[in-house]
């Protein structure tokens, strides 16, 4: 018990709000744990950090976290966060959401936050399904899988969120899973230290609505599957597209620190505007 009480990460939680509402075996708790460990590693000021989410099982995480927190509308967390960051650039702003939240309804905001390179850290709790609404397919559901809205098998094609973020201009991009927690903590910590838009695709498992229907579960088996199919980015570079089929690449994919960051650029706009209106 003493050990638990002395655990350095406890201070990042709102103890009165625990236990959380997630199902037994849900991957989201592991991801939330990774986030606070990374926060601890980096040493963020709890009074100067805002955590913003959309709507979904994953988006319930901020409620458990002892910071200024904002639970917004479905898909729009990045846009709310953009307003917070621009209004008070000195705050650290972290954004969380599910794959439905981030890649479907909020997909447009993702592209444009990447493009602006605004100093936010976004973590997508990616479980390949809509958990909260009980198992409809998401843009991350693999073709052929079952969902309540794909009772005959999903014909949609998923896409690679990391590649999307990189193409859209994110300056820090990485992927890990609820199995690869050490890597996940490392990526989040680096993302937090990064000045610019950082995106972490954090693969999670939803045993309740994805695992069960697709006979992939229980939870531990789903995590073991992550272990089997994930290839570190370095190793993946030496593999052919054929060898990489059905594999998931994990690790740090983009890290370009020297790209102009949006709020800093806006400070320059202010300086120019003042100079021009004075002269």
């Amino acid at each position: 018990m003493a050990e638990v009480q002395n655990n350095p990460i406890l201070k990042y939680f709102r103890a009165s709000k625990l236990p959380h509402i997630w199902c037994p075996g849900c991957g989201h708790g592991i991801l939330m744990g990774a986030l606070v460990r990374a926060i601890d590693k980096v040493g963020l000021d709890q009074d100067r950090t805002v955590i913003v989410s959309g709507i979904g099982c994953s988006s319930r995480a901020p409620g458990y976290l002892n910071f200024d927190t904002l639970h917004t509308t479905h898909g729009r967390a990045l846009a709310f966060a953009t307003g917070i960051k621009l209004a008070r650039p000195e705050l650290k702003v972290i954004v969380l959401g599910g794959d439905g939240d981030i890649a479907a309804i909020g997909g447009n905001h993702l592209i444009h936050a990447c493009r602006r390179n605004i100093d936010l850290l976004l973590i997508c709790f990616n479980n390949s399904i809509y958990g909260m609404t009980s198992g409809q397919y998401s843009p991350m559901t693999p073709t052929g899988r079952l969902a309540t809205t794909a009772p005959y098998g999903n014909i949609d094609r998923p896409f690679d969120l990391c590649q999307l973020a990189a193409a859209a201009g994110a300056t820090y991009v990485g992927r890990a899973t609820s199995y690869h927690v050490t890597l996940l903590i490392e990526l989040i910590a680096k993302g937090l230290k990064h000045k610019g838009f950082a995106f972490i695709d954090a693969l999670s498992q939803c045993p309740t609505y994805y695992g069960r229907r697709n006979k992939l579960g229980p939870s531990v088996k789903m995590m073991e599957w992550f272990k089997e199919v994930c290839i570190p980015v370095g190793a993946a570079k030496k593999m052919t597209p054929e060898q990489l089929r059905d594999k998931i690449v994990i690790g740090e994919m983009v890290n370009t620190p020297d790209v102009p960051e949006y709020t800093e650029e806006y400070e320059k706009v202010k300086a120019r505007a003042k100079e021009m209106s004075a002269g």
Partner: protein
Amino acid sequence: MVKTGKGILMQGNEACAEGAIACGMRFFAGYPITPSTEIAELCALRLPQEGGVFIQMEDELSSMAAVVGASLAGAKAMTATSGPGFSLKQENIGFACMAEVPCVVVNVQRVGPSTGMPTSPAQGDVMQVRWGTHGDHPMIALCPWSVQETYNIVIRCFNIAETLRTPVILLMDEIVGHLREKVVLPDPSTLTIVSRRKPQKSSLPYLPYKPVYGDVPAIADYGDGFRFHVTGLSHDYTGFPTNDANVAAEEIKRLHRKVQAARNEITFVHKYRLEDAEIAVFAYGGVARSAMEAVMRAREQGIRAGLFRPITIWPFPEEEVRQSLGALKAVVVAELNLGQMRLEVERCLGKGIEVIGLNRVGGQIITPDDILETLRGVK
């Protein structure tokens, strides 16, 4: 800086932006749309001069979201749009109602539905303003008729938003938005400017949603060390979600109560020659300019006409309508829609009084002649 104290020529949309900046608006997020775009353009130019921030977001959903985020971080924040964009903002306007985040949303109305007629005036959004976002929520909307009034009213919108912690809609129309006329801007030091009240730090647990000033809570700004939670889910005083039916019901009722209680401070109406009138024109926004002219001409012709112009259209000025118009023979409701406000006037006045709709859609304005003719036709 704009000149104050002297007559200058200004457009309604410009007056909206300058008035907002004068009262401390320092964050604007928007997406271009006719006939509101000049507001965004002027904010892009002016805000950085004043140390504020302008951002053109990827759409209106995100513009509204960014405004709410900025306000939670302490900024006086605004967005401006027109019909199609206003539709897109609705979900996050509701969020601002529920989470009690002060902000001002400008809608410069154009012809709808859908893309309609982008450069032509209409007043088809008056009901959307009231009922556009889902659920039972109160709504406050003010409607200026001139460039000068736009400047003054946007400041009032901010004062109301900050006092009551709720979104306030500045409902303009293309006529007023694009009108250029003479204005005299007041010296900024003479303006009454209200800012949200902040919580006091204390040893007790912080309850961000506990009503402190009447029914209005004292919610902190992010970054001030209170570590509090904000959600659009029904919540209790702690700010955390609740499934307790009584708590949820009380919250919704409190949101209404705080607006109702402020009725006298937020209701503005303009009355002209109603004291001895037999008939009145009820008109708002740009159309009221024609109505004023028509009433003056009717008086010259011996018709005892008057004008009732609500500046606050939501909450609907029921008492004022009953008091001022309740004993008249007839009321002509002139509006650029198919009779949206007429329903409200009829509801308030009941059966005894003839309520005549003078309605136009399709982008043509209602002229003084149109209104005069209607007044002359009243038996």
